């Protein structure tokens, strides 16, 4: 009988990080961040429902340097999870499992994420700027 605790799945620590694996881990990481974002979105909506005083406190928080950085991070995490989520749904439909196809779709996800994030941030500046 082995007495030493064995590493349990998923065996992240025994693999050399690979491109597709890093993308997969990033999907989880952005998922955790966005799960926290849902909590913050609920807080923001409750502030809006509570009236101008509560809403303006939330708005001030969003407009602070840290707030802007966090919101920009959420935009990046959202578009990554959005694009890679579509990649997952395509896999669920049974397509694109081959190594070359999976690497290619991964590159598309990274490029689309960066483009959509840049477009969102530029559009925010264009339409009204600060939160």
């Amino acid at each position: 009988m082995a007495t030493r605790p064995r590493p349990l799945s998923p065996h992240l620590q025994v693999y050399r990080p690979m491109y597709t694996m890093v993308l997969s881990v990033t999907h989880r990481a952005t998922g955790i961040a966005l799960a926290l974002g849902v909590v913050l979105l609920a807080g923001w909506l409750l502030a809006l429902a509570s009236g101008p005083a509560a809403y303006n406190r939330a708005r001030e928080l969003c407009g602070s340097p840290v707030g802007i950085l966090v919101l920009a991070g959420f935009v990046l995490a959202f578009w990554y999870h959005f694009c890679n989520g579509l990649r997952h749904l395509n896999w669920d439909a049974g397509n694109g499992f081959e190594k070359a196809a999976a690497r290619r779709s991964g590159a598309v996800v990274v490029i689309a994420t960066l483009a959509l994030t840049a477009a969102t941030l530029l559009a925010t500046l264009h339409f009204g700027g600060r939160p």
Partner: protein
Amino acid sequence: MSLKTPLGRVLGLGAAGGGAHHWRAQRLSAIALVPLGAWLVASLVTLPDRAYGTVHGWLAQPLHGLLMALLVVAAAHHAWLGVTVIIEDYVHTTTSKVAALLVAQFLYVVVGAGALFAVLKVALGGWA
């Protein structure tokens, strides 16, 4: 050839005693969140400003109120499903695992209900 018992094959549940429903709900909420998420980002970005009156007036419109209500329900559900999988993968002690799963479930029921209540209050709050 299958190693499953005839009863297990008929029930189709596997070792975990479940799974198909979780898998299905995660995909359904993901599909719902594709248009809803894109709508949320596009809406928040294109508002002329983020003053109380502007944002409140935007969410009080029936279409936007409905879409936000759908979004917070789908997002809270999807977040709970995802957090559940992560807890099941990384928390190995039964006590901690069950405790974390319970906290996650309560948290996302409260978050979903709270957000939905806020949207309804704004949307149905009258014309004052």
